[in-house]
């Protein structure tokens, strides 16, 4: 067995330190249970090493976790600190609590995303045996994977540009194999739609968060009627209610974020990884076809025939190896995707119900008291 999780995480000024904890019975490791500390750059190094490894060309490489981004949250907290003088102590405390909760939520999410990456690798029958992966898990010193410098980033950029031009080229060639032809069409469309849904779910959830304004409105109301004893108790009761429903609304937005938005984001990245696999297979197919043409030419000229034959065989083997594993990978991708959507949609519906029922109960009991009071 090989079980990997992130048991702890620490947020320092501009970096996050993840404690990667492993439990394993594999003989490759010196101990059965151990932990190391890793940073985001080291996860990226591991991911890139998979992508660059020709042996893994036929697999969907688990997508890299996104960089932890606390900038927006940190900025908001800073602004709050600056504006402390201009609001009441109560307002300040409430806003601070909200922003801190937001910061915590982002933190938890980034931990989850890094963990999912490691779990996917650990679950993959071939990738889990990768040497770099084992080093990542076990080597308790810094891996010294400095972030890419400017030159390397530029090289990456050009690599991507060439790839997308290539991608168009390769996508244009119709596949003899029905399965792959269908997958190609499907993935292209699916990826675009997931991208669209992901962006729109983010926007929807963000505007959901902004309707918490209501609570602050309510605080302002109570100030108006503080002096009016006839209505004091009434306002207090309603204030209590809104305080509680506001917390529930916050949870609703957070759960929608987790179960819906994050799901869509993840499958955006995974569908891209699947597309990359198809691209690599497409490239291998082009290479194979070119080798065939070269062989024909060599035979016609009767020159370098042996060399052309060898090249052709290598290309053929590479293409067939990729095709075989790709087929299985794509089938697994579908299974995983359907399972993940099912799990998340069921959990989303259950949570929405839980929160709506909670709200309902609060409203009913408050109304009961208010109506009885007159």
């Amino acid at each position, binding site marked *: 067995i090989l079980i990997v999780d992130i048991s702890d995480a620490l947020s320092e000024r501009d970096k996050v330190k993840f404690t990667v904890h492993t439990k394993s019975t594999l003989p490759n490791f010196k101990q059965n249970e151990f932990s190391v500390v890793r940073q985001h750059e080291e996860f990226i190094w591991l991911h890139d090493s998979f992508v660059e490894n020709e042996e893994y060309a036929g697999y969907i490489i688990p997508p890299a976790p996104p960089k932890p981004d606390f900038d927006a949250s940190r900025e908001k907290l800073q602004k709050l600190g600056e504006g402390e003088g201009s609001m009441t102590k109560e307002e300040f405390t409430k806003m601070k609590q909200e922003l801190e909760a937001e910061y915590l939520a982002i933190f938890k999410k980034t931990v989850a995303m890094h963990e999912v990456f490691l779990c996917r690798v650990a679950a993959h029958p071939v990738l889990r045996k990768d040497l770099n992966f084992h080093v990542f898990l076990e080597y308790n010193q810094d891996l010294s994977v400095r972030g890419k410098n400017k030159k390397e980033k530029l090289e990456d950029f050009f690599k991507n540009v060439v790839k997308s031009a290539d991608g168009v080229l390769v996508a244009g060639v119709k596949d003899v194999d029905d399965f792959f032809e269908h997958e190609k069409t499907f993935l292209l469309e699916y990826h675009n739609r997931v991208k*669209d849904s992901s962006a729109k779910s983010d926007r929807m959830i963000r505007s959901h968060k902004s309707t918490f304004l209501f609570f602050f409105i309510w605080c302002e109301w109570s100030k108006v009627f503080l002096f009016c004893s006839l209505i004091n108790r009434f306002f207090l009761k309603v204030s209590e209610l809104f305080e509680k429903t506001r917390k529930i609304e916050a949870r609703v937005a957070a759960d929608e974020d987790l179960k819906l938005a994050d799901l869509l984001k993840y499958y955006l990245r995974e569908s891209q990884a699947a597309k990359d696999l198809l691209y690599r297979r497409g490239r291998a197919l082009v290479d194979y076809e070119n080798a065939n043409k070269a062989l024909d030419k060599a035979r016609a000229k009767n020159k370098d025939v042996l060399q052309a034959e060898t090249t052709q065989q290598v290309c053929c083997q590479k293409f067939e190896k990729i095709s075989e594993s790709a087929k299985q990978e794509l089938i697994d991708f579908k299974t995983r995707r359907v399972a993940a959507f099912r799990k998340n949609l069921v959990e989303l519906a259950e949570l929405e119900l839980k929160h709506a029922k909670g709200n309902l109960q609060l409203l009913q009991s408050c109304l009961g008291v208010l109506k009885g009071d007159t």
Partner: protein
Amino acid sequence: MFCSCELILFLLLTGDGMNAYMAYKVSTQTSLTMFRSKTFTVRRRFSDFLGLYEKLSEKHSQNGYIVPPPPEKSILGMTKVKVGKEDPSSAEFVERRRAALESFAACIDNYLPRAVSTQALSGAGFLKMLNKATDAVSKMTIKMNEQDVWFDEKIQDVENEEQHMRKLHVMVESLVNHRKELSGNTAVFAKSVAMLGSSEDNTALSRALSQLAEVEDRIEQLHQEQASNDFFTFSELLADYIRLLGAVKGCFDQRMKAWQRWQDAENMLQKKREAEAKLLWANKPDKLQQAKDEIAEWEAKVTQYEREFERISATVRKEVIRFDKEKARDFKRQIVKYLESLLNSQQQLIKYWEAFLPEAKAIA
């Protein structure tokens, strides 16, 4: 003894073009004996309501009664409606005005216990009348020697209340906008999910996603309704109260005017007494009688104005206390209504998600 009015938009655009006007059907149920029947319906237009305000204002506000002001006349809003634009905002305008007039009528019922003439009323120059009234109020800079501390405190309270109300008004408008934005984003998301569902090649998941799209669509409807609920309940409530507070302030100002009249009379009396003294000194007996007459006249005026001032003070005091009670009761009622609508929303939400859950579980 009760009198309640219901306002329905009866005829839209009688007449044509710019001469068109909206007529309202005003249905009244009453137990007041002065009316010929228990229920009756009349047709009124907006200028009739303004005329009513003018009459009531004239008659009663001088005596310290709070006369609730009607909604402002909006030339732009009316023009849009007259030109026949199929504009959602003009439908909103029509509804806002109808609701505002209805609450104006209800206010009159609540706040003015005296009988009110519902005969057909005069037409022109109402805005001028209204503007004159508000001008008078704002120019009030009389510094009063407040004998009664109660009035001082009350005026301060009203000022504070108005400040808070205005702040709240801005916040509620912003809340309504946010909810509308949420509604829009939800609709867009629903469409996107429907598209995703149609490209998904697993049948059960595809169906579940299109169900999700439907749920989100219905939720968007809920948000829309909530937004208009927020608006009609809170925003209008606030706007009404802000206007009413203005009328309360007008009340206090009338009292100040009465005080000023009394003080001016006292000063005049003082002057007359000094004049008499001078005449006595200058020994002009023929003018003396006239001076004595004038003194008597002003003594009477002083007494009259003093009594009037005390009467108005008592009325204002009673009115403000009654206003507070009415306000508390009104607010409670509206908030309870609002909470009930929130409760409704939650019940709807539960229905939608309960229908969706089995679809999600059916994914295989």
